[in-house]
């Protein structure tokens, strides 16, 4: 079985992290974002994953070589030379997605994190016999998104409504699709929107069905949602694979710690914290609701909450980072400095406190 992951473009909303690596390679829960999806696809028997990209193919390809061998799954790239929207890339990758088996293929949006109940989706797709299945998820504020209006019992999709002004439903497109190869016949190789053009057409022929996504869902394409997403992800780990989470007297709530990370004495870590490979957390440190990426050193007595600390950065002694502080790669916060929502680009040193949210270039 095959799958396509829509990786898209520059990931500007996740800057400054995406100034250092392309978005799919930004770590989430201690592994590159895209690896969560590739692993889920591998687990249900997908043999080939195509990444639809339009940016930095060399970086992606290098990374992929490592994971192809480690995971035993074929990974290739389909590169757009001009932006093709959300459906065009499927046409571009057509030859890679169709084989003689006639099996349906998955399409995933790379910014999305969820439990990926793909086996259930295959069963759902077989049972309704339509041409395409999409996952939808319930949200509190549907008018921020595109709402999918569907018949509750069968899941047959009636229509899509973009940012509705009145309440039409609370299910939105979760960015996970399972499509029959015939869908590719509907998509031309030009900039096309799958939500605005392709799916409405299939829905009008009553061949599009939606399944409500069980478990959590988050679009982690921007820092605020990344931090919320981590909480949801760790909650889900607690339910499904609790042995992966850290335990100990210095741990509160759900905390993920890479085995190569070191944590000192007298720390209080959690809830909702991920500490990546090679990190050093010195003694007396308080961490909550934050991600600490590979190679970071948090010095003694520091306090970090609701923040993302980028690769190989350091946070000084008695320093405090909170309120959506995002440190890019190789950022050094000096001792005793306070950052209230500082967003710092790579290779900077912060010597003076940042008292209100500010971008430091």
């Amino acid at each position, binding site marked *: 079985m095959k799958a396509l992951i829509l990786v898209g473009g520059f990931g500007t909303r996740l800057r400054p992290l995406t100034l250092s690596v392309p978005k799919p390679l930004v770590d989430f829960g201690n592994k590159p974002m895209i690896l969560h999806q590739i692993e889920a696809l591998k687990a249900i028997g997908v043999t080939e994953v195509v990444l639809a990209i339009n940016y930095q193919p060399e970086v992606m390809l290098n990374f992929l070589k490592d994971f192809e061998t480690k995971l035993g799954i074929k990974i290739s790239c389909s590169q757009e030379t001009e932006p093709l929207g959300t459906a065009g890339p499927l046409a571009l990758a057509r030859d890679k997605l169709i084989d003689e088996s006639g099996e349906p293929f998955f399409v995933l949006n790379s910014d999305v994190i969820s439990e990926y109940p793909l086996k259930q989706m295959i069963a759902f797709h077989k049972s309704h016999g339509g041409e395409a299945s999409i996952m939808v998820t319930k949200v509190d504020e549907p008018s921020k998104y595109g709402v999918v209006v569907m018949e509750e019992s069968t899941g047959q999709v009636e229509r899509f409504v973009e940012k509705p002004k009145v309440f039409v439903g609370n299910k939105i497109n979760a960015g996970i699709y399972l499509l029959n190869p015939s869908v590719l016949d509907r998509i031309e190789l030009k900039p096309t929107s799958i939500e605005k053009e392709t799916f409405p057409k299939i829905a009008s022929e009553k061949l599009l069905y939606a399944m409500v996504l069980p478990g959590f869902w988050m679009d982690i394409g921007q820092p605020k949602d990344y931090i919320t997403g981590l909480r949801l992800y760790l909650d889900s780990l607690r339910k499904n694979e609790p042995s992966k989470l850290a335990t100990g007297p210095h741990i509160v709530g759900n905390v993920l710690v890479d085995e190569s990370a070191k944590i000192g004495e007298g720390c209080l870590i959690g809830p909702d914290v991920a500490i990546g490979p090679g990190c050093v957390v010195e003694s007396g440190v308080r961490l909550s609701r934050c991600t600490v990426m590979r190679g970071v050193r948090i010095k003694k007595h520091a306090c970090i909450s609701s923040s993302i600390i980028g690769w190989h950065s350091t946070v000084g002694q008695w320093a405090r980072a909170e309120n959506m502080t995002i440190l890019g790669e190789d950022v050094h916060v000096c001792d005793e400095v306070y950052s209230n929502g500082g*967003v710092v*680009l790579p290779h*900077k040193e912060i010597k003076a406190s940042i008292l209100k949210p500010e971008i430091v*270039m």
Partner: protein
Amino acid sequence: MKTSDQKVVAVIMVGGPTKGTRFRPLSFNTPKPLFPLAGQPMVHHPISACKSIPNLARIFLIGFHEEREFALYVSSISSELNIPVRYLKEDKPHGSAGGLYYFRDIIMEDNPSHIVLLNCDVCCSFPLTEMLDAHRRYGGMGTLLVIKVSAESASEFGELVADPVTKELLHYTEKPETFVSDLINCGVYIFTPEIFHVIQDIRTHREDKANLHTLSSFEALRLTTKTHAKDFVRLDQDILSPLAGKKQLYTYETMDFWEQIKTPAMSLKCSALYLAQFRQKSPGLLAYGDGTKNPTVVDDVYIHPSAKVHPTAKIGPNVSISANVRVAAGVRLMDCIILDDAEIQENAFVKYAIVGWKSSLGKWARVQGEGDYSTKLGITILGEAVTVEDEVVVVNSIVLPNKVLNISVQEEIIL
């Protein structure tokens, strides 16, 4: 040695990528020395100035940018000016004097009698021939180009005191906290090969000192985060300060313009200064037009020959338009730099801004800055491939590459 036998070699320090993030977001795409001012790469201006020196044998660019970034430029400028230009890459930063010392053998290959040392990010008229004559008259080891500035701004630079008659450098101090003098160091020097002995002495002295005692913790606190290995030698603090008052160093004062190009906003200011200099010295490089076959041009404007500008556009003052730019009908451009391959659609307006490579401004878009070259958001800077949609206004903002602006913004940094 007769003057006609005395070869001169020029060395231009071009720095490297980790040194300073102040030139972001433009430095994401191009090394600062190659950023265009008045239509020519920044480093081109000191290089052209060197060309006027009699008996110039060779020009060296020293820095720690990747070699491939300079390869193309160096070969094309060598053939264009018919003088050998070579890029020497430091394996790591050695400081302004350390870099010179590191490559001393290569620099001395032509057996020069004089070495002109320039910093690439200095914007001035580079009166090198006059400075060389003065240097020969003084008979010292080195001559510094100096300029008077306002007392308030002097503390940002190296302040110095010179004898008003002999012009000897009597005292030098870098970025002092209290007022010393309103005469500052421009970052342009002429040395005799004796400079290498002086740097050598500093290095040996430093090694001896290190061997004699370890730094007290107070001294350790006073050091900057860079570890001062024995081969990191700064010209200002390590050479000029100690040698002041010893009849070795002299000064030459310039009455022309002088600026340092540390930020993108300053590059816009300096582009204007160089455009004005073109008007004096090479008016053929500037654009002219009255709206009939060519666009209306106001004051100093540079337009690359490959750029297409509609005749109903009005351009200037102080505008530089780079290669392959397309400017549509009814566009007004003032005080700006439009970089390669940008597209500016009908009736758009740009003032006090830098529009990045491959960017696109929609119809009736307005991209504007206040024109304050010294504050962070004093001009608007659009990075590479930024799209400003029709009728959108962008004021006093910095926009990182690849963004699409479909709503107006003011005083913002857009990542």
